[in-house]
């Protein structure tokens, strides 16, 4: 009887792993093949900016979105990485008591779970009260809010896993807390890099917070206060278009997006290996 159960469960398991892999491969396959076709037909769409009637089937490409994504994601990741390191160091026992750290961690978890659309609306309401339209700066701010809890949690996890002995030795040499913190940061650098690249990936793929804050423009971003757009937002607009040619461009944009995400996750693996030399033992 129990052997029968074993067999049934095993069959179910194989079915379910096939379902998981099949559905994910379906997504990957569709995006990559269709995107490849549409890029091959017209490779220029990656490098040209859109014409005035682009979303209505006019000519042009979506280079403005790629540029906008980069302009928004890179600064916001750097800023939130710095903030995250400082917050995670503060959560250590040297700076704050255990109870306060617990409460802060709870808040970080809550903010992690908050949907990105709420960050977008939040920044939008601030913008409205200043009587401004969407701009690049607002997009950066929204992305900082989005990434901060994610990166903080990863940094916190990797900092808390440093061995106690390291800290004790460092303090016994007469170092102050900042100096010890520097050592800890170096020790856990591989975890920090992994966390910040995960945050970067999330920011690249997030449309809901950007669509409210940057004001979906069809021009190249010109400055901090000019409006711009991002790759996921453009995919969303293209996919809802009535024109088949524009919808094909959506696949091309999604292809670029997936390639960026894949490159990020491969770099994160390589960097982790490279930085693990600072990790003693292991």
């Amino acid at each position, binding site marked *: 009887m129990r052997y029968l159960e074993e067999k049934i469960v095993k069959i179910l398991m194989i079915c379910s792993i096939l379902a998981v892999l099949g559905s994910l491969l379906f997504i990957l396959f569709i995006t990559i093949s269709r995107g490849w076709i549409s890029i091959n037909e017209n490779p220029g769409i990656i490098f040209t900016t859109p014409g005035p009637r682009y979303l209505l089937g006019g000519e042009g490409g979506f280079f403005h979105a790629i540029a906008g994504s980069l302009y928004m994601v890179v600064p916001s990741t750097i800023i939130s990485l710095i903030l995250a390191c400082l917050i995670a160091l503060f959560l250590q026992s040297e700076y704050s008591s255990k109870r306060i750290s617990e409460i802060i961690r709870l808040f970080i978890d809550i903010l992690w*779970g908050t*949907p990105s659309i709420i960050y977008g*609306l939040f920044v939008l309401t601030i913008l409205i009260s200043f009587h401004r339209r969407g701009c690049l700066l607002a997009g950066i701010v929204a992305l900082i809010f989005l990434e901060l809890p994610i990166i903080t949690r990863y940094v916190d996890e990797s900092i808390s896993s440093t061995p106690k002995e390291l800290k004790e030795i460092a303090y016994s040499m007469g170092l102050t807390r900042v100096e010890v913190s520097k050592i800890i940061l170096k020790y856990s650098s591989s975890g920090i890099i992994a966390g910040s690249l995960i945050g970067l990936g999330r920011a690249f793929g997030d449309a809901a917070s950007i669509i409210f804050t940057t004001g979906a423009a069809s021009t190249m971003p010109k400055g901090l206060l000019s409006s711009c757009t991002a790759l996921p937002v453009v995919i969303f607009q293209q996919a809802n278009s009535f024109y088949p040619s524009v919808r094909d461009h959506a696949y091309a944009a999604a292809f670029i997006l997936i390639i960026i995400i894949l490159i990020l996750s491969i770099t994160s693996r390589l960097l982790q290996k490279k930085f693990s030399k600072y990790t003693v033992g292991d």
Partner: protein
Amino acid sequence: MKVKGRSKKVGNRLSFRLVKDNISRKIMIVCTSIIFLLFISFVVLLVLKSNLVISKYSIKELLFSSFWEPENHKYGFFSATFGTFIVTVFSMIMAIPISILAAVYIAEYSPNKLRRYLSSFIDVLAGIPSVVFGLCMLLGFVPIFSVLLKKWFQIETTGMCLFTASITLTVMVFPIIVSLTVESLRALPVELREISLSLGSTKWQMIKKTLFKAAGPGIISAILLGFGRALGETMAVAMVIGSKNNIPTSLFASGQTLPSLIISSFGEMMSVPEEQSALIFVALTLFVLVTVSNIIAKVVNNKLKKRWRY
């Protein structure tokens, strides 16, 4: 004299280091308070901005009537709340058993090499943006699905319906739940498995009776993380759900979720202050829903950790 001078110098250097220490501590406190400020200002700003609509209409009317007609000044979004509930629950019903069984297969049954490939593949997939899921479902799945439905069940739909939205969410949360569950299963000590097997249980019995309990908190937090993602997912859902503001009659009818309601009414939002305030009230509802479910998750997780400790 000389000795004194040197000691003064050393003292200076130390005090400089201490000053640096103090300053950095203050900077850290400021940064940490950002987290609190962010949370508090979320709540305050959302409440303030939705005040306009709350004061005009009763909260009960807003929450429980299902007539979203901004042109007639009706802002009941019960259909969106209902749609969110249906879509999330349905997608979790599909996702939980499949992804846990898949995770068990990866963690316990598959050979070592295959496991490494599978788990890193799924980790990579967890980073795919939701827009891509929405796009593939909208352009790849919806047309086929509507034809199939018509052929087999004689149901007329556009294919953009609650069911498609839940399938999209299911596929989206697969990698999240699978990778976290595999992680928490692999973190268990080997002795646990050995003891259970030496008592004569089969492998599945061992997994069912021992590992699921020992890894319980990890698995549950994986499920809840997936649940949170499904609840707040905006773009993918907005692309495939069809955006109709009435209570859906069947699973194959178009509907609306809270985030997709916000996105699809976004265009008019800047111009009409009343609708803007109503949409912010929708966001507030979403925020409260997500926060409450997060806190419940945390509490349940802590309780289970105490109870299922091995």
